[in-house]
């Protein structure tokens, strides 16, 4: 039941998050904004179109969107969904989940390079750099959770329990970190600006400049899914361990939408960082994961 719900949520909640972000930004800017499900309709529209494909490109360009979407979608099947239930769960599934995202990223990067465009190369380069910083913090964080809980599966890992202040500390530090990662991977301000029309300042959008039609739809859906993934992680992390099932079912969408609202607020209130300052910002995630680790060691009984 929960699994089916998970999959159903996957199909539209990501779009809804995009819509909400947009709406929040619009409201903050004194505008009305487009309908909440507009991103969904945009995607549907794109799917009905043909594609313009650069003659420079090869099969890599053709398979990358489908591959990226398939990998991201599979990763989402592993991620903890409603009430921390996963569609697929096994020991160490978090590794597979994150590495599937890596696979998606790999093909998006080389597909960008496949076009032979300087702009897309630039986007790829930046995208890769930011992942370099984000990835270790995720693993350190996951390892820390495993260190404390002794569990190995995504849902169990993110279900914090134990005495003292550990769940509070871990949940707050983790949530902040995950939210920062959400902004990064979801290509939001202050890291990236999906709405700009100046190619030089974009990251993710500039990577997919040459994609069109269904390819573009796939890639945008994949991007939305990825953002949604981090929202689910935040939800899984901050929910108390012993929450009743029915509450849990509502908790995830609520948290996801709250994340979207928050992201929208951030976008409204902050300006985009200079690209060269982004890494410093991202090191914050590393710091947070290390703090969590230190806390974990402390709560386990100190260094011995």
């Amino acid at each position, binding site marked *: 039941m929960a699994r089916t719900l998970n999959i159903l949520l996957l199909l539209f909640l990501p779009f809804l998050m995009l819509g909400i972000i947009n709406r929040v930004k619009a409201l903050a800017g004194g505008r009305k904004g487009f309908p909440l499900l507009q991103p969904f309709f945009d995607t549907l529209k794109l799917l009905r179109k043909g594609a313009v494909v*650069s003659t420079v490109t090869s099969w890599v360009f053709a398979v990358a969107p489908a591959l990226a979407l398939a990998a991201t979608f*599979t990763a989402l099947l592993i991620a903890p969904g409603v009430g921390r239930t996963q569609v697929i769960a096994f020991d160490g599934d978090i590794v597979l989940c994150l*590495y599937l995202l*890596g696979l998606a990223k790999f093909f998006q990067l080389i597909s960008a390079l*496949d076009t032979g465009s*300087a702009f897309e190369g630039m986007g790829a380069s930046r995208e890769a750099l930011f*992942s370099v910083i984000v990835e270790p913090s995720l693993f350190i964080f996951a*390892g820390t959770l495993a260190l404390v809980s002794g569990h190995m599966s995504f849902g169990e890992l993110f279900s914090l329990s134990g005495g003292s202040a550990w769940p509070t500390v871990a949940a707050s530090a983790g949530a902040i970190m995950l939210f920062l990662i959400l902004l990064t991977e979801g290509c939001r301000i202050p890291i990236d600006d999906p709405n700009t029309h100046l190619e030089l300042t974009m990251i993710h959008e500039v990577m997919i400049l040459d994609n069109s039609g269904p390819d573009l739809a796939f890639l945008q859906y994949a991007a939305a899914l990825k953002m949604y993934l981090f929202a689910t992680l935040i939800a899984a992390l901050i929910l108390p361990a012993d929450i009743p099932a029915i509450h849990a079912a509502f908790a995830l969408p609520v948290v996801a939408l709250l994340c979207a609202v928050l992201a929208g607020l951030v976008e409204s209130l902050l300006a985009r960082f200079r690209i060269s300052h982004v890494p410093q910002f991202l090191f914050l995630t590393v710091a947070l994961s290390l703090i969590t680790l230190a806390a974990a060691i402390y709560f386990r009984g100190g260094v011995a």
Partner: protein
Amino acid sequence: MTFFLAGIATLLAAAVLQAAVPRPLRLAFFAFVTVAGLIAAGTGALMTLLNGTESILFTLPFPFERATLELDPLSAFFALTISLGGIAGTIYGVGYLGGYPERSLRGHLFAFALFLVSMLLVVTTRAVLSFLFAWELMSLWSLVLLFFDRSNDEVRDATINYFVAMHVAFALILTGFLLFMTRSGSGDFASFSAVMSDPSFTETALLILFAGFAIKAGFIPFHSWLPKAHPAAPSHVSGLMSGIMIKTGIYGILRFTLIVGVPTTRFAIIVLVVAIVSSVVGVLYALAQHDLKRLLAYSSIENIGIVGIGIGLSMIGMRIGNGPLILLGMTGALIHLVNHSLFKGLLFYGAGALYRATHTRDIDKLGGIIGRMPKTALLFIIGSVAIAGLPPLNGFIGEFVLYLSMLSGAPHASGSYGGLVVLTAGALALTGILALYCFTKACGIVFLGSPRSNAVETARDPGGAMIAGMTILAFAVFVIGLYPAPLFALAVTVAAGYPYPGDAAAAAMPVVATLGSVSRVLLLFILLFAFLYYIRNRLIAGGGGIAPAATWGCGYRHGTARMQYTASSYVSPLMTLSGRLLGLGTDLERPQGLFPARTAFRSHPHDLVDDYLIAPGAKLIRYLFSLLRWVQSGDMAQYILYGVLFLAAALVWIMGGN
């Protein structure tokens, strides 16, 4: 064992007999016999892995007297790796060598077969002298293979560098062995375990051995020879050197861990730290390279580092009695080791095909190869995905097992060990993502986009044998990636030999189940991808089909191929970030005057160990040597003076009652 010995005999026969075969048939003959020998040896090794240890004692004349060949799980595992890598390498190599019809190749093939034999012997002999003998032969034959391209100064320098590095490694290994040997009174490895009662002695001896083996394996800071030797060697040799030979360094470390039992904490941590540094710094250096084969060489350092991480974790596990770390750390290391031999072979072979077609290894001169060499490009991309540790290929499996070992081991590790393990996971993740970065660069800049120079114009896919050699590897990469359980079982057989609290086989059962789950998810993913791709094509067809166009230039119409992102611009954000550690040196010729005639900007990668360890060391030695410049001054009286002074000093010493 019979199969194994038959295999070695066949290889020796291949080495000798090929010289008698007429040149047109020589390569085919050689390939046939060598592959047969390797299959036999590999079968022998596999049988041992399944059935248990076998050994055979030879009584030989001086200097060996008694020599034991033994296939225990560890040896068999490495012998199997060598055989597998050797088969692909031979097939590819024969194709590669086919491009040199004017050369007789007798010597090269001879060295090639003996190189394989010596590696097989290295992992199976069980006494100091015979081990060192095989070890040095291995270095020697690889050296001979290395200078295939004789007219090149770079090759010469790399050869000398390699020779000296190998000798330093040998000296260290020799010292370590001798320490054990004199304590135990015998050169037999088996007797060494008896002398372990003195931990500080054992630790010293092990550290010396580790340093020696680390040179061969290419751990940072012992790696200096590696990025020079690999690019200089012809590609089929680089593939073997990087894919297989450096693993014998790992073998040495593992063999001695097996003998010693539980190492000291300090030793375990040293291994782990060296491994982490190797993996992270190795991949950073790989990122900085402009030379495709140097990039691959540094990436070998990274992967050896990953293997080392597994070994280090396992050692720490042994120290603190942590089952998952021991078993899965070791298993992960072994799996990654096999995997690396497969995909690194594949990548080097791809680079070799590329070099043959374009005569350049400079990444910035390539681009758009995929249109001209589609097979090579496909195989190279497969190798790249695998080496980045991404599912559904084999690279993922080794790293997955390592993560599993850390995630399941950390909770049972007390205090700071737990933190160390978690940080190691972070380091492995960093390595993984950097490898991804690095190999998107390798694939993307080299194979995709538009051609950056006319070196690319003549590029064509190589002939059958080379593609066949690569295809074998690519196939293995897929099979292990999707169905890792058999390899895992073999690795567990080896890992179970290490001190493990409890029943290793039982502890491995849940992991097999987990790997099964992984396989299923990956199959699901592949089906999903196939489905989506099908849908995508249908949708596009339904939506008006594909309209070809030029790449969107953001309104700029005069884009040229040279304006594409280059290898160095692709990685430049990271380079600025990692600063001096990476040491990507830049030369800028600033524009001068009102009408600047010429400006130039160049970037060239540095290696910290070369710059701050090797070069000053060499300088110091040169300086010390120059202090003795006066000795051979040419003045005869001075020559006689040396004798007189020696005499006087000796007499004073004697008269002083010595």
